């Protein structure tokens, strides 16, 4: 394919070289980048969405469940036939209302928080808790809380996450610690695995965080207080866990989330670092002063070349970009004694990937900052679901599941009303009760 225009001898030469090296360098030879690898990950293939797509997905999951619930309620009403009075029907229709997508989301968020709290209570490593959170939220992208009671999935999720993260706890001792039972824990394990599309490997932002910290310390060596950095590191790890409770995980890559968390923690330091790393030399001079310009240039140049091509408008795709921003993670400069020669080799290989002089391959600091800020905003916009809200939603769902209970309650209430004039407050307390009853074992 090489040489219609070149001279025969050149073509010959070309071919002979090709045949010599062909086993190593096929015609379509292209070095595999970190981005390529991330794009092959199940996290990217199955669990990254645009904002619109994510919304559609939730609406779809909700709609399917609503239809089911409605059919179930109708069936119940039909079965009751003449046994159900008009007022009972009215009450039923007002109480057993299928949840909206937003309500589902709130309930999921509420229980995700529970997953986190229980994980901490069980003294699980951060990564295991992170995976539990991730699994739980993914499960409820695929399934509705109206079909699977979140309360019943909490322990199952944590138990599977332990195994997926190679942190095995026997089911009996897990049940004991979590005050649950073996059957409860294992009941939905297959279902969970299936809804997770059998994908169990998560890329959490903790590793990029570690990498960025090493890189920041190296690049700003002597200019940052190591004690301060240590504290900042711990804070950032906690913030990352919080970020995993937000939709940022579906729209941004782990290194982007890491940078958002970092910049939220110390905007000045991190901006300075990013400017050194990715800024144009002039910008660096202007904004950060002369003393730290020189070491940055070379590095920035190198990094720049690796990044540019991915810059696209769509959020999901923009997400890919920071893979390279996460590069330091693959260059654990101070970890050589642990990782040995292999890491170094990887590093050399990666460096070899950068084709010379492809100038359009520069990372745009502005674009990067835009992404990080958007990510940061999304993390910050996460609102806490109050227990009261969650209880109300839970009750609604409960009535959808058990319409007979609504009728029974109504009957009981009417009987009571005949004896004494009922107060309205009673109704609200009763409304909350199913959740309370169930909650004790959570």
């Amino acid at each position, binding site marked *: 394919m090489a040489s219609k225009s070149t001279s025969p001898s050149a073509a010959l030469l070309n071919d002979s070289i090709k045949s010599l*090296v062909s*086993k*190593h360098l096929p015609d379509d030879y292209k070095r*595999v980048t970190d981005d390529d*690898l991330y794009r*092959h*990950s*199940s996290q990217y293939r199955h669990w990254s969405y645009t904002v619109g797509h994510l919304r559609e997905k939730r609406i779809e999951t909700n709609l399917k469940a609503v239809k089911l619930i409605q059919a179930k309620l109708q069936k119940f009403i039909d079965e009751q036939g003449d046994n159900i009075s008009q007022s009972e029907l009215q009450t039923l229709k007002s109480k057993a209302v299928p949840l909206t997508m937003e309500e589902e989301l709130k309930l999921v968020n509420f229980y995700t928080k529970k997953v986190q709290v229980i994980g901490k209570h069980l003294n699980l490593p951060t990564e295991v808790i992170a995976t539990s959170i991730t699994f739980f939220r993914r499960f409820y992208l695929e399934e509705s809380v109206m079909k699977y009671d979140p309360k019943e999935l909490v322990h199952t999720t944590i*138990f*599977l996450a332990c*195994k*997926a993260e*190679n942190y*095995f706890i*026997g*089911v009996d001792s897990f049940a004991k610690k979590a005050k649950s039972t073996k059957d409860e*824990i*294992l009941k939905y*394990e*297959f279902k969970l*695995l*299936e809804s997770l599309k*059998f*994908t*169990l*490997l998560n890329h959490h932002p903790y*590793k990029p965080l570690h990498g960025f910290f090493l890189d920041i310390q190296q690049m700003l060596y002597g200019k940052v207080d190591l004690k301060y950095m240590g504290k900042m590191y711990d804070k950032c790890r906690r913030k990352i866990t919080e970020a995993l409770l937000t939709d940022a995980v579906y729209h941004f890559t782990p290194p982007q989330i890491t940078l958002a968390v970092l910049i939220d923690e110390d905007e000045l330091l991190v901006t300075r670092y990013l400017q050194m790393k990715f800024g144009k030399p002039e910008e660096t001079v202007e904004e950060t002063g002369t003393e730290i310009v020189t070491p940055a240039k070379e590095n920035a140049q190198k990094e720049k070349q690796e990044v540019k091509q991915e810059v696209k408008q769509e959020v999901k795709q923009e997400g890919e970009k920071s893979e390279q921003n996460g590069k330091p993670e693959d260059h654990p400069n101070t*970890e050589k004694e*642990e*990782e*040995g*020669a*292999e890491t170094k*080799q*990887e590093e*050399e*290989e990666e460096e070899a990937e950068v084709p010379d002089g492809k100038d359009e391959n520069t990372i745009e600091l502005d674009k990067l900052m835009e992404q990080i800020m958007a990510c940061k905003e999304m993390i910050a916009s996460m609102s806490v679901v109050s227990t009261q809200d969650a209880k109300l939603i839970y009750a609604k769902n409960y009535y959808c599941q058990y319409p007979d209970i609504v009728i029974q309650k109504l009957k009981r209430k009417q009987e009571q009303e005949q004896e004494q004039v009922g107060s309205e407050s009673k109704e609200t307390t009763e409304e909350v009760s199913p959740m309370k009853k169930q909650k004790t074992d959570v």
Partner: protein
Amino acid sequence: MRESYSKENKVGEGTYAVVYLGTRQSDSKKIAIKEIKTSEFKDGLDMSAIREVKYLQELEHPNVIRLMDIFMAYNNLNLVLEFLPSDLEVVIKDKSVLFTQADIKSWLLMTLRGVHHCHRNFVLHRDLKPNNLLISPEGIIKVADFGLARAVPNPREILTSNVVTRWYRAPELLFGAKHYTYAVDVWSVGVIFAEMLLRVPYLPGKDDVDQMEVTFRALGTPTEKDWPSVSMFPSYNKLQIYPPPSRDELRNRFIAVSSSALNLMCGMLEMNPGNRWSTVQCLESAYFKELPSPSNPADINISSS
């Protein structure tokens, strides 16, 4: 939506799974179904099954076994894998099969590519052996069985050294190291390379103690000089100190092997895991650039004549 598969004859049974040959109904393509035994589970899904699913979902590569589908049937987990009729162990053992230096080079190259793909995805295989290097009908080597795989550990994370089938176990594992990395897999590939050349297992220890004896007798006992603080391992003191083999000794053992082939093998069988070659170093070795060039996998005849 689920495609349907037919299960035909049972071809193997492991501790946690039964393997069947089968056919994909849609296109009559041959497949293998690994049915994970449920009844055995005390703790829900088995860890090996979880590891296998976890890593195979991420590792798509011509030299890694392809996980085509997963489905549940009768509360069993079924992994649908590509059909791979042979493996390197069978081929090495079958003395009626003749293979050339170029064939060995081709197999080693494919193996290293598969292992490299694991490593660049931060996955350690931890059970490389000829039996786990399957061969496709087209002669392609595929790394299989990820039941012992794990992610590359964080620094200071403590690992179990009770991994890898004995004969392919790296010295740091023999010493009971709690920290190790990619180098354990490279060692295994080195031993497999030697086995392909010799056509008998290279370091066949009878038990764990004997494995050290066999390994160090063949390759020399590591010393502080080439592996600083190796003597800190508790079992080190009991060791017989053997000198490393001379180049001539190696050449006598591996006759008709080029010097770059020996270099590569020694790089993979370097005692000190820190000095052991990485998969990248191996893949870039002169061995793969010199003649004979690796055989075209499809041209290698592995069926006994």
